[in-house]
């Protein structure tokens, strides 16, 4: 799904490295605040939804090649976090919704979880 559609669905705003239409495609969603979990599950097609707006989050996104990060509940990161994201070309969006609501909206839009029980290359747990 085009990241621009996701921005729409989440009533979000791109605050760093806004994507051009069609440029960033998202296929899965990871929701959480633990660095090691992000590293285990997120990948090149993952939108990371988190309440933790730190520079560490931007760095783990880069490590796993995740193209975009969404901060929930209108949490605004420090300027330095935005600059880091810009320098790495990672899109940062903020949504007014909480993690629960954001997940519900993205799930309803047909996106599946980035969490595979068997690790990054494992299968999905369907609900």
């Amino acid at each position, binding site marked *: 799904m085009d990241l621009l559609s996701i921005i729409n669905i989440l009533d979000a705003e791109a605050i760093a490295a806004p994507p051009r239409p069609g440029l960033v495609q998202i296929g899965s969603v990871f929701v959480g605040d633990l660095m090691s*979990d992000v590293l285990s599950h997120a990948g090149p097609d993952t939108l990371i939804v988190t309440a933790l707006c730190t520079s*560490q989050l931007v760095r783990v996104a880069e490590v796993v090649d995740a193209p975009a990060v969404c901060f929930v509940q209108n949490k605004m990161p420090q300027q330095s976090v935005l600059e880091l994201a810009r320098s790495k070309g990672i899109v940062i969006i903020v949504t007014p919704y909480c993690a629960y609501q954001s997940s519900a909206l993205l799930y309803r839009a047909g996106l599946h979880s980035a969490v595979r029980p068997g690790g990054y290359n494992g299968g999905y747990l369907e609900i």
Partner: protein
Amino acid sequence: MTTLTFRVRGMDFSNAGEVGAKVKRILHQIGFEREVTRRAAVAAYEMELNIVIHAYEGEVKVRIFDTGVEIIAEDRGPGIPDIELAMQEGYSTAPPEVWKMGFGAGMGLPNIRKCSDIFEISSEVGKGTYVRSVVLRG
């Protein structure tokens, strides 16, 4: 072969994560496969953060070969009294002040092992810890 050496200081969170990020960028640039790049970068990241969180200071050395990547983390620190316990998923002695930064899940060492084709760890209490990971292409 290319060798990169990163000095890492305990509790320095301003740069924490840059080793993994740099490894990712370099391997990507020289054309390593995405999955190999990912595994090496994740291992490097977790090794770096273990020095930041659990040790006083240390070094992460990355050697890049045509056939893969070798990452060695060596630190001066308290060491690990029970390695088998430390390797268990979810086991962590990380201090509460790092939890709010998203650390201390106790998944770092298990993650490194999962990402590695060769994994070695040794430690001396009161001295420091040595971790070696090799990630192979193809």
